[in-house]
């Protein structure tokens, strides 16, 4: 199909990279990526993916824009206070790149709705702000065979992990169970600096582009840990746990919602880049 003159002009700085080129740009245009959370991590991630020409972005968020968001959630603005983050975010992304199709899902992702919400997407970026959602996203992506880029940030620490379902470590392989409420603070409780979220959210978008374009080494089986106070990065090796509850050899989580709550099976299908 080729690129239009406008696309060539808009994406010229990435087109000239051998890792991108016309073929890569067309792959981005065909891609559909879901972002869980249009906040601190979702903001830079969505902006960079929209700017790069990803064809379809799905924003999943149930919150409205609050004043306390604006120090780091650059997708939004003072004028959007009180608006749904999905709407505010979609407007900003379309202004940046009108060619990107933005689907808004103004809802809180749960174990119950995750499989259906994520079914139309080829890649998921988890920038949510709570553990139940994160584990639901992880489980849905593993069960649905959807690659997942997980990122988290609080105070001066950030982490990124890329999950290639059933091939590399998933969130439960690394952290088998979520903490009880209050054990690990949220950004509201412990605070965070804006650029911390920028660093991690940008890294998440970068991972997504690497996966979609098929270059470099993803953060699969490697947990990236960022110490903002020291401005240091390190990666620690992690691995698929044969005893993992969702992707292990004898997994107990085989459908969502979990069997104890009742629910239907999810068709397992592997989506490959």
């Amino acid at each position, binding site marked *: 199909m080729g690129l239009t003159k406008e696309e060539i002009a808009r994406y010229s700085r990435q087109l000239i990279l051998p890792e991108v080129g016309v073929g890569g740009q067309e792959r981005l245009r065909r891609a559909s990526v879901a972002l869980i959370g249009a906040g*601190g991590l979702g903001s830079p991630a969505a902006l960079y993916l929209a700017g790069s020409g990803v064809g379809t972005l799905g924003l999943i968020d149930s919150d409205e824009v609050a004043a306390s968001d604006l120090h780091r959630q650059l997708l939004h603005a003072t004028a959007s206070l009180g608006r749904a983050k999905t709407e505010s975010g979609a407007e900003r992304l379309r202004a940046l790149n009108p060619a990107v199709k933005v689907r808004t899902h103004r809802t809180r992702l749960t174990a119950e709705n995750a499989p259906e919400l994520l079914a139309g997407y080829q890649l998921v970026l988890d920038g*949510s702000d709570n553990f139940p959602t994160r584990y639901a996203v992880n489980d849905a992506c593993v069960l649905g065979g959807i690659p997942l880029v997980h990122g*988290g940030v609080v105070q001066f*620490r950030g982490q990124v992990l890329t999950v290639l379902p059933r091939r590399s470590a998933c969130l439960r392989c690394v*952290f088998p169970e979520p903490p009880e409420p209050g054990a*690990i603070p949220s950004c509201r409780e412990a605070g*965070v600096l804006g650029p911390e979220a920028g660093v991690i959210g940008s890294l998440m978008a970068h991972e997504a582009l690497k996966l979609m374009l098929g270059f470099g080494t993803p953060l699969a089986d490697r947990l990236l840990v960022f110490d903002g*106070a020291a401005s240091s990065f390190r990666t620690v090796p992690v691995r698929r746990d044969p005893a993992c509850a969702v992707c292990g050899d004898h997994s107990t989580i085989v459908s969502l919602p979990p069997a104890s709550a009742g629910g239907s099976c999810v068709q397992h299908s592997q989506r490959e880049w």
Partner: protein
Amino acid sequence: MAVTVRIPTPLQRLTNGQGEVACDGTTVAGILEDLERKHPGVRERICDEQGKLRRFVNVFVNEEDIRFLQGDQTSVKDGDEVSIIPAIAGG
């Protein structure tokens, strides 16, 4: 020399803001005991009442996950680095 324990940010308020603490011990369990002696209150954030590692915390000895080694009985020696890495949900 001793063993360097890297403290995650959420726990640094219990270690006087230190991101690294030098501890003595021959196993991870011993190191955590020494860490608790030096900075009371840290261990209960990492281990449960039975002394088992909480399932949202990972401990690495020189970048090896102790769950794939000998757990808290994993031996450590002078100069080793023990990293405590908890899950993060913030976004």
